[in-house]
């Protein structure tokens, strides 16, 4: 029987990440404090082990690997910064970065706007919202490999249903899955199909917007668009920002849908430069060519790019995002 210490459960008033402050005492921990710490560490130990073995060590290790030439079958040779020099000249690095950037820059805003539009619609449908919410969410359950299959089938330029629907309104659709210029747009569109989870997040945020704000806006004579812009969007900016950040990171790591549809074994004639995203190139170099050193250098490049973008987003969010209860 140990730790007869009061549970540190916060009172209901303090919640979330803003939990009760840790006692700021610089003195040596008392025996009871030590006991509590040890008990805590026992519970936390699985994560600590995992962090050391599967996060910290791999990060350091990939930094070392990026300075070597290593194919797993033969011993690694140290090559200094050769991999980074090679990267600077490799047209596929530039291409994959470009593809990834274009995809993310187009996909994230579009995805967010569509999610917001659907959430606003759902917010209007009081009683039937549950049914529609379910319908919107189901595609999210589809394995991304199957999404890749659907992309190839539905967006087939000749027989695909997307072009058939377009033809009803007199538009002759492009060859979505084979035309260089239309491959990324096709991938963006199919990604909108799995917008359901973002809709649910935004809907939850919308429902937390206090009614009186709308009433006040209405009294001021604000129309729907005005209200959306002046009340709704600022009030749910936290959730919007969340959707944006998550999708940006996911966009930079785009792999499965594009790989399923355009890459793979026995698919050499179908290789398509337009769908060569960073992680796909990394995967090819690492596991198809067994250029583990070069792939590690690519991984570091990707890491730096994602971190930069995320930091920029966080800085911007400080200025734009309103959090409930925040002092301004």
């Amino acid at each position: 029987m140990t730790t007869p210490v009061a549970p540190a459960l916060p009172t209901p008033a303090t919640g979330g990440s803003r939990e009760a402050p840790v006692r700021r005492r610089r003195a040596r921990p008392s025996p009871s404090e030590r006991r509590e710490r040890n008990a805590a560490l026992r519970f936390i130990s699985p994560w600590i082990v995992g962090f050391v073995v599967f996060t910290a060590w791999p990060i350091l290790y990939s930094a070392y690997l990026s300075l070597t030439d290593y194919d797993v079958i033969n011993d690694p040779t140290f090559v200094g910064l050769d991999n980074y020099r090679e990267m600077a000249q490799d047209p596929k690095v530039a291409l994959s970065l470009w593809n990834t950037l274009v995809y993310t820059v187009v996909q994230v805003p579009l995805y967010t706007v569509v999610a917001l539009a659907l959430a606003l619609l759902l917010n209007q449908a009081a009683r039937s919202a549950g049914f529609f919410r379910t319908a919107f969410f189901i595609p999210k359950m589809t394995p991304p490999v199957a999404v890749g299959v659907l992309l190839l089938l539905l967006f087939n330029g000749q027989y695909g249903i997307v072009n058939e629907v377009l033809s009803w309104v007199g538009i002759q659709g492009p060859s979505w899955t084979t035309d260089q210029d239309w491959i990324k747009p096709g991938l963006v569109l199919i990604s909108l199909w799995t917008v359901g989870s973002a809709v649910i997040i935004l809907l939850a945020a919308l429902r937390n917007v206090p009614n009186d704000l709308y009433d006040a806006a209405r009294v001021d004579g604000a129309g729907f668009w005005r209200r959306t812009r002046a009340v709704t969007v600022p009030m749910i900016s936290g959730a919007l920002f969340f959707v944006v950040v998550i999708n940006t990171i996911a966009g930079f790591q785009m792999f499965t849908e594009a790989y399923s549809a355009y890459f793979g074994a026995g698919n050499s004639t179908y290789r398509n430069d337009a769908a060569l995203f960073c992680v796909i190139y990394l995967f090819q170099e690492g596991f198809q060519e067994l250029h583990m050193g070069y792939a590690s250098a690519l991984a570091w490049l990707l890491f730096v790019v994602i971190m930069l973008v995320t930091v920029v987003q966080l800085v911007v969010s400080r200025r734009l995002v309103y959090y409930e209860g925040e002092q301004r």
Partner: protein
Amino acid sequence: MVVAALALTGCAQGTGDEGADVDFSADGSPSGERSVMGFGTGDEIGEVRYDRATQDLEGVDVRLAEGELDIQAFLSAVASGNPPDLVYANRDQIGTFASRDAILPLDECVDAEGVDLDAFVDTAVEQVTFDGSVYGIPEFNQVQVTMANADLLSAAGLTVDDVNGSDRDAVTAANEALMRTAGGTLSVIGFDSKLPEFLPLWAKAAGADLLSEDGRTAQLDAPEVVEALEWAVGIYDAQGGFPAVKTYRDSADFFGAGNQFATGVLGAMPMEQWYINVLNESSPDAPMAFDAVRTPGGDAIAFASGSAWAVPRGSENPAAACRFARLMTETDAWVQAAQARADARAQDGLVFTGVLTGNEEADEQIRADLVPDDAPQPWQDAIDAMYEANDATFALPANPADNEFETAWQDAVNRVLNGQQEPADALAQAQDEAQQALDDAWARWDEED
């Protein structure tokens, strides 16, 4: 646990450096479960040989991982130290595997099993031989044959001579005469120049080799190659661009009764000879016309490719693997398999259109004993075209970067097809990439020996 994991990964090592002594001479009978990667029995030709081989390998339970070889899966299996015992690859992958130390030289295997390499087709053996060592036991030979829809040809006032490649301008004209569009989309493909795969064929027909004879110098930016590519791409451009053609081609029922020839939506294309058999089986009444692919001089020409059996480094029982490879590729195996196919075709009232085994001895016997020389047309033409092509093959010279080399020129062709680059620029870039890969691979190769 942490410490152990760290210690284990403390320094990266190669997994391939354990003792290089491999014993191909099996004492007693090899036994246990043996795994084969990349091979599926498929039709009679595969099944009969497979059954025969497994019967001879008593006590060995052969397990197949079917489907085309996935290079990534294979290499990481070797890297992780649990490779299959035997691998079935394309012959143009063997060089890359050998230079990465992923497969073993088979000279001892050839000696121990008494494999008669002279019986094989010369170009096939050359493709898997490096520095005098054999790394694969070849099987099958794929050659290209011109296939055309006779009805479409005659409706346009053409013959198969206009589409067999002997006269590029004639093919270009035929393409435009044969193609049809309906409401802005392609409804009949006139001619399919089969890019990117068949660039080596079109280049060679114009007298150019993509790679020097010693396998060390890429020649992808030679003017003849550029011209060949420009012409072959022009065929697609005339039909609204490659994406349109490819989209249409992808949605066709390639293997079934609704194939492009049977439904009259394809004028002509060069295609590997096994497709003759598919057509004969799935649409025996399709109005077909066949010829070899020809050079401007009228000679037949074909770009040979095929498969090969190779033994991965780390194979648990190379002796059994080697014996299996020998049993699959020896003359008797092919003749029995061909017999089974011929019987099956006869039963269905269909023509046996032959099989190209990569084994000359077997080819000759099969042709002499089983393949008809008076088959109903157009199938006799097909058979003749196939054997004519088989006698006029060329192959890319063996080299330790064959897979990278192929990637370089195929990517270049794809960039042109996608409209990203002009043929000359794309091939110049491919030339640099290919030469770099060749230099690196040869340097490593020469260093090791």
